[in-house]
């Protein structure tokens, strides 16, 4: 009796799929995987502009003069002098034209060393919206302005001096970066305060100026962009990276497309600090690259990706349950059958576990020394389906992954052109390859040894019987699996997913599920014709 082939196939499948899924996770979470000591993608660059990120170099004087010349619009004018550590308060006052009809007043601090860092995000909104802005050491002088208006105090946390000035909303955070993100998201509709740029607002043309706390003056020098480009302010870290809070926010700002990526809106960054690293800027640039609605690209999570992840996670959890449960409670079930149920349950989330429990919570009887379960026809068919599906479907995914990892071969000579051009096309070749590859694996590593252990026949006859069962089982599964995977990859998902996209796995996982549903009634016929058995 041959026993080693089943675990060998199972381990092969497990290794290939684990490798694929782990690589997908790694590439999904990595920041700059291509940057290595041997590969510096910053080397040789001629400019630092990127498709979604414009970079202005130099200090506050250079940035100010550059933007003054480049943005001549009256509507975007700021104070006519370079902001410095000494005069920045005056710069702000001259740059903001307060709207007398405004329903809110912004209060910021100017009386401590890092005051500008904390005030800058609010200054950007005030400049854009023409909001009245008052410094906290000038409250008394502005009592009339504050009267009857909702006060938004945007500071590092000390709001004591605002007592007695009316309704005050305190907006504070543990760092300037966190405060900037808070303000970017915040919206008080009643008084029209705050950018309100949350993830849910998909239709906005949002732009951002990005500096670091130490380079807050650079940000102030770029204040004109708040007026011309409706730019909100965000902070990078002084260490050249993106703080977690900023990083998380920018990914929420990636916009999606439904028809073509040329549809709006677009998001854009203006980087005005030399401290930001190349890796940080590249991440900014990539975070707002438009993506199709279902998958939203790497790192960002699209709705269809979320469905795929839940589907796969439920499948893996089900497989673990079946493996442990069958190991402890079903000693009379042969290992190859347990493996089939385990692998099958992985690809048929929830339903696989339900069918497994349904199949074995049944009265038993004996055929000689062998335990059998008394099952109704539908569960017999499901059980028989699982025997072929459990090995066949994951083997097909594993072979497909190997194809995708190394790339599909294609042929396009004049001889195979025209009506049969598809015979040389990558997708059909891959589908045929995954079917054939998995069929060979299943015949030699599953069906032949299984028949060998159950029947006393010549090797040739056993092989023929194994071939017949494997062919019928896998063809039945393939009917649903191939159709759905073709439809999803070539038609439904706007961009054909690659083998390191979770949607690639999700597509094949869901296609397998459908393959099982298609094969189930077909297995019912095979049981009636005594080609397969459903009571083991």
């Amino acid at each position, binding site marked *: 009796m041959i026993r080693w082939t089943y675990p060998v196939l199972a381990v092969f499948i497990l290794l290939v799929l684990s490798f694929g899924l782990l690589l997908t996770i790694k590439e999904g979470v990595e920041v700059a995987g291509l940057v290595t000591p041997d590969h510096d993608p910053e080397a040789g660059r001629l400019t630092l502009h990127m498709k979604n990120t414009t970079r202005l170099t130099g200090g506050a004087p250079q940035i100010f003069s550059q933007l003054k010349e480049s943005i001549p619009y009256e509507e975007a004018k700021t104070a006519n002098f370079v902001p410095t550590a000494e005069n920045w308060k005056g710069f702000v006052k001259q740059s903001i034209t307060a709207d007398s009809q405004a329903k809110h007043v912004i209060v910021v601090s100017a009386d401590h060393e890092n005051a500008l860092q904390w005030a800058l995000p609010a200054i950007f909104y005030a400049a854009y919206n023409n909001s009245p802005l008052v410094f906290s050491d000038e409250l008394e002088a502005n009592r009339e302005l504050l009267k009857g208006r909702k006060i938004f105090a945007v500071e590092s946390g000390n709001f004591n001096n605002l007592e007695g000035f009316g309704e005050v909303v305190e907006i504070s955070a543990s760092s300037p970066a966190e405060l900037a993100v808070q303000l970017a998201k915040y919206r008080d509709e009643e008084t029209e305060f705050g950018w309100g740029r949350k993830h849910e607002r998909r239709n906005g043309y949002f732009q951002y100026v990005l500096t670091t706390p130490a380079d807050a003056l650079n940000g102030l020098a770029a204040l004109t962009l708040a007026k011309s480009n409706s730019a909100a302010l965000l902070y990078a870290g002084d260490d050249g990276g993106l703080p977690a809070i900023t990083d998380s926010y920018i990914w929420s700002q990636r916009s999606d497309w439904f028809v073509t990526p040329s549809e709006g809106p*677009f998001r854009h960054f203006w980087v005005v600090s030399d401290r930001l690293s190349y890796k940080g800027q590249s991440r900014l640039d990539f975070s707002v690259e438009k993506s199709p609605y279902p998958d939203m690209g790497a790192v960002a999570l699209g709705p269809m990706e979320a469905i795929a992840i839940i589907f796969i996670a439920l499948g893996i959890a089900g497989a673990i349950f079946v493996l442990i449960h069958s190991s402890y409670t079903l000693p009379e079930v042969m290992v190859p059958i347990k493996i089939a149920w385990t692998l099958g349950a992985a690809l048929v989330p929830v339903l696989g576990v339900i069918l497994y429990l349904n199949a074995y919570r049944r009265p038993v009887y004996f055929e000689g020394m062998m335990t059998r379960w008394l099952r109704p026809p539908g569960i017999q068919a499901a059980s028989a389906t699982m025997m072929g599906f459990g090995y066949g479907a994951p083997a097909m995914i594993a072979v497909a992954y190997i194809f995708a990892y190394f790339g599909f071969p294609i042929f396009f000579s004049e001889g195979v*052109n025209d009506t049969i051009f598809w015979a040389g096309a990558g997708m059909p070749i891959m589908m045929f390859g995954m079917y054939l590859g998995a069929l060979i694996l299943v015949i030699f590593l599953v069906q032949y040894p299984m028949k060998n252990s159950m029947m006393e026949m010549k090797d040739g006859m056993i092989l023929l019987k194994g071939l017949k069962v494997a062919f019928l089982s896998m063809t039945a599964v393939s009917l649903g699996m191939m159709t759905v995977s073709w439809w999803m990859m070539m038609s439904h998902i706007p961009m*054909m997913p690659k083998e390191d996209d979770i949607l690639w796995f999700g597509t094949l996982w869901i296609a397998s599920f459908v393959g099982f549903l298609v094969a189930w009634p077909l297995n019912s016929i095979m049981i009636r014709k005594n080609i397969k058995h459903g009571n083991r």
Partner: protein
Amino acid sequence: MGTARRTILTALVAFVFYSCGKSEGPPAKSGLPLQEEASVTAFTVRLPGSDPETQAVILTQTVYPATREDNAVGAIILVPQDEEIAFTTMHRVTHMPVNAPMLYLSEEGEISGATFAEMKRLKPDGVMPDGRTQVYAVNVPPAEVARIEEELNYKVRTFYEENPIILAEILDRWQAAMKSDHPDEVVISAIDHPDGIKHGMGAMGWNAHMGRGFAWVYKDSVPAATKEILRRRYGDHGSYMYVTGNSDVVSDKVVKELGRFGLVRRVAGPNVYASNTVNAGYKGYGRNFGWGWGWTPRGFGWGIAQAGHNYIFSNAENVLGTIPAAVLGHMGKHGPILLVEQDSLPDAVVNYLEMVKPFPANPQETILNFGWIIGNEEIISRELQLEIDSYLSPFDQKETTSKMTDTTDINSES
């Protein structure tokens, strides 16, 4: 058991931390050679190439930071500085799933140091539906191909065909094998008209953006290779052909002959500038293919007639610099190519930009346009960049600083 669990957990946590990496790092390099020339305005950024080779490198650097697989290229296109070959190749190769920008050989037909370094920097992932090909080399000398394979260890697919008409047919066959389909929409441009490429520049940008078909015609006849391309289409009307240029560029006789292969439309204006603004606003939609239970509609062209989009502004005479710029319509903000003069906006472009000018539309933000300026100030002047910016801006149009074109009749030929 407990120790094993701890070990596995530690290994998993270590794996995740190792995988994530970090964005912290030294400040970005200063003293970049062309940063000063890459002038900006509120709504435009200049990519200041002075020659086609440099322009192509700036474009790849702008679009592909190459710090991770997802912002690096799928492959690289390498072609000689030949307008017809480059135009044909950009039409058919750039779009997904290939995801390839274009780089040029030097005028001597070699890979220059800067281009070779850029090829190394780009680190292509390889095209999954084409055996992980990393470089598409069209008419590149074998010695240079060998250099790429040996020194960069990239997988190269070569195409050797000096005749652009036949090259289009070969690329059509290759694309069909890769996508298991022949896209039924086919852009048609004139190869023997001096402005044939310029009239079709915007449509080439659409193909770099959406990956449809392309074929050449002569002004007065249809070549055999093009007939072969058109015969392969099985849409409900056969092919859906979009001829770039008016009857002076592609004759009515040719259009009638093309009509035997399907439905023909012109994407054309009275001059090269107008042909490209028509292209930017053009949308051909409707029937493509139906089979009872399912159907596929046709949707050709940008169809942009409102604010909130991106444009690629390039000098009409800078053909080799404009072709690789179509990659800006493939990634980033995407958008059509508009042709201009060195220091003036043609009337057709002014009319178009007036139509798509933004306006304040929301209390929390404004609909915004964006524009790329292709070439240094000798190719498109700074004054014109500022003028373009004023048209793209949401602010009221003020008196412009650069001189307007003296063409007053938009129907006149340039």
